[in-house]
């Protein structure tokens, strides 16, 4: 930023205003946000209830009591089962590497199932499966994350209390279609709720406080953040593109109807972390994210600014990534209630304000290039850097309930014949060639043994026994589901070269 240049430019603008005598007393254009046009961009909205598809058949219930291991119950559970954890304290890392598990804390007379990391354990709950529900836990004193998802689709993380736990309170990553609601998260060194590299997300009715970042939407698309209370963090609600990550965009984010107040906590983020650059006193921060709508929030008492929109060049400590678009384009600011923001702002914002001869409070500041941004009722706010914002052609997002997918994200459908070929070539071919010995016997030998008996071959694949002294024992291929086992058996019995 060349501030000298901007100051000169400001003086010219000021002089122009003085010479031409622009009036400040014209009645502003007042736009009603009630009943007007609704936003029509963004993800095609669908009517949904929750993110995890409803179970048509109730599975088994596994009850875990204090003294038992939650992980043992996870290992015993089949997809479709529910694990109920009774009130009491559990010190373990729970990891769910299977689909369709509901992990439910039982709350009795206000007492919760508490996961206590004792300041020693890494993460409380990790999941990689699809269709996972995690609810009603109290999580404290872990070093890493409270609840962390890695690529699971269709998840609901609900009604958890996460206190003084490591880096992120709730961190779903690389997943599609997730709901994070009714959680109370505090005392987190990075983001209390961090949506990383994910699509179709709904974050609602959470209270996040005493953390560096309240809610962070990073390198994610189609997210709604609504009805949350983000207070007493360093920054309240963030929509970011972080350069250097493998998925490059943040797009189509609606931040609406949240309380964002008193986010003035000194930054206690780890040195070098992305959030360590957030100035204390930041209400809502949009960095390089596109198509972000900010509507209906009550934004008060954030000392640096109510809303900061900036490009990557405003953040000198982040890496260089040529594949990452540095600008925040198409920011859309609808009606918000903004009180007493920017009362003790940072020099960088003051410098930008000075270019417009703006002094005093700052509700909204935009730094860096912006294409296609808009606002309504701009006269209500103390603004800096939004001179090129147009009037929005809509006044609300009432037509959009949710960006969640009706029926959930669907797994890839692979025909069973294709499954057979994939498994045969992807796995079997390493040890079995059509003719001649590789590591196991040749396919021709196997075909002779199981000519009309694919079921028998599938059973052997599932649980092999040692038959030949001069061959190594075959490892069980029981990670393949029974459909795939039969498909590969049929495929193997018909190959001809």
């Amino acid at each position, binding site marked *: 930023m060349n501030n000298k240049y901007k100051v000169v430019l400001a003086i010219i603008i000021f002089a122009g205003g003085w010479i031409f005598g622009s009036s400040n007393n014209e009645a502003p254009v007042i736009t009603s946000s009630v009943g007007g046009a609704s936003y029509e961009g963004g993800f095609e909205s669908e009517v949904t209830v929750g993110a995890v598809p409803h179970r048509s058949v109730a599975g088994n219930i596994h009850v875990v009591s204090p003294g038992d291991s939650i992980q043992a119950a996870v290992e015993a559970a089949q997809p479709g089962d529910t694990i109920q954890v009774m009130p009491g304290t559990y010190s373990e890392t729970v990891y769910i590497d299977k689909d369709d598990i509901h992990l439910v804390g039982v709350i009795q007379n206000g007492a919760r199932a508490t996961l206590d990391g004792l300041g020693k354990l890494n993460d409380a709950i990790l999941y990689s499966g699809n269709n996972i529900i995690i609810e009603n836990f109290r999580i404290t004193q872990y070093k*890493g994350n409270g609840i962390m998802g890695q*690529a699971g689709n269709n998840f609901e993380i609900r009604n958890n209390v996460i206190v003084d736990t490591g880096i992120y309170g709730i961190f779903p990553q690389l997943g599609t279609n997730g709901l994070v609601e009714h959680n109370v998260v505090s005392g987190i060194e990075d983001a209390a709720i961090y949506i990383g590299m994910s699509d179709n997300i709904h974050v609602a009715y959470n209270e996040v406080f005493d953390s560096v970042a309240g809610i962070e939407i990073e390198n994610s698309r189609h997210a709604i953040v609504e009805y949350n209370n983000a207070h007493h963090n360093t920054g309240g609600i963030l929509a970011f593109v972080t350069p250097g990550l493998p998925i490059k965009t943040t797009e189509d984010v609606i931040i609406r109807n949240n309380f964002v107040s008193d986010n003035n906590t000194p930054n206690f983020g780890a040195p*070098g972390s992305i959030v360590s650059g957030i100035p204390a006193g930041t209400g809502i921060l949009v960095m390089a994210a596109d198509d972000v709508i900010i509507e209906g929030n009550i934004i008060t008492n954030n000392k640096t600014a109510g809303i900061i929109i900036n490009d990557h060049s405003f953040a000198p400590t982040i890496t260089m990534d040529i594949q990452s678009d540095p600008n925040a384009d198409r920011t859309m600011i609808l009606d918000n209630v903004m009180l007493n923001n920017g009362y003790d702002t940072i020099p960088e914002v003051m410098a930008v304000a000075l270019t417009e001869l703006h002094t005093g409070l700052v509700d909204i500041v935009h730094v860096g290039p912006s294409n296609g941004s808009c606002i309504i009722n701009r006269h209500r706010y103390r603004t800096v850097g939004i001179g090129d914002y147009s009037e929005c052609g809509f006044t609300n997002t009432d037509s959009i309930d949710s960006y969640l997918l009706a029926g959930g994200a669907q*797994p*890839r459908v692979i025909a069973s014949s294709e499954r057979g070929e994939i498994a045969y070539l992807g796995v079997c071919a390493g040890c079995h060639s059509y003719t001649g010995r590789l590591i196991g016997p040749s396919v021709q030998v196997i075909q002779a043994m199981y000519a009309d008996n694919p079921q028998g071959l599938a059973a052997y694949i599932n649980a092999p026994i040692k038959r030949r002294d001069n061959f190594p024992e075959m490892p069980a291929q029981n990670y393949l589901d029974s459909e795939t086992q039969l498909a590969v058996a049929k495929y193997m019995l018909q190959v001809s070269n």
Partner: protein
Amino acid sequence: MTKYLINNKANRNAFSCIFATLIAMSFTLAQSAESTFALADKCPPSFALDNNNQCQLRNLYQLYDSLQDRGLGGLKTALPKHRDGFSPQQIDLGRLLFFDPVLSADKNLSCANCHNPTLGFSDGMDRSVGARGQVSQRSSPTLWNSAFLSVFFWDARAHSLEEQAIGPLFSDKEMANTPEQLLSNLNQVAAYPRLFEQAFPASKDALTIDNTVTALSAFQSSLISLNSAYDRYAHGDAKALSPHELEGLNVFRSFVARCSQCHTPPLFTNQQVAVIGTPEPVGLPRDIGAAETFSAKRLIGGFKVPTLRNIARTAPYMHSGRFATLREAAEFYTKGRGHAVPEGEELLLHWHISDPKLTDTELDRLVDFMGALSDESFMPETPSQVPSGLLNTSTSLAAALEK
């Protein structure tokens, strides 16, 4: 092989003219050595041959999806987009070329010297040795699973297998060849012109640099390693990992160690550039890495995140092989952010380089887990002889190392 002899025009010519008996005899003698080289008409394991004579990759990760089709995620996540569609003949020609020292200026280095199959397609050295014994700046990376990469070299300067293959062939510090010299050398080897014709039947002029590079790329794309113990666990066998390996997986993906944030499954790299601040070999200046590629000071000391598949096979570690063991490499990350950056040097270290305070036990478990990423079940066959007849130094080197 027989089919090859029947179509052998040179042999037919030899019988067509008695006057040229002497010449023909010498030709036939040369051919007899040459005739042992015939190209496979079947795809390597893990590939299906389609009706266009192209090998199409099949693996279990094709049963899954990934966010934005980027091939990043957790256990049941699709891999990144891959290269395939080469013919069996192209892959096999690539294999012969890969092991043939005739590709280098001095005819003493093959690709396999630095990418030795018995050493995880790396070379066991901290920094590789190129033409005329020159020690290069960086360590030789594995070639396993390079079909899935879109970024090549430590400094992220190439974006395809072909672009990558050009690098070492014509780098003065590596194989030190020139396009003219390489073509001339290949043409002097009796077998190559016709092997190229067989692999590239549609080309008018089959023996070209482009086709050489295509064949090398074809071979590299066939080096698939996706059947490790980890993979069996990922696909659903809860018992595939030992208790120690499983503990290691949970450290690996924890947000304390954060390994999986950059070494992201299923490929175990996110293919981004990261500045982590490992020490250079004693006495050597900072290798600026990707800062040169992107003309960006913020990337000084930045290197492409390498895959960890078969990582236990490719010691020593990091871009200049500074760490002899996986244990030392893992330990680097827990000695404090920037601990190895000399005083006064400013590096913009990656945000995940933190201070995780891993215990000795956790480091041991990480090493256990990384060992569970080994799989060489689709190891290609090293040819016992290459078309040039030159000594395949890589195999003798391997034999020496094994002793």
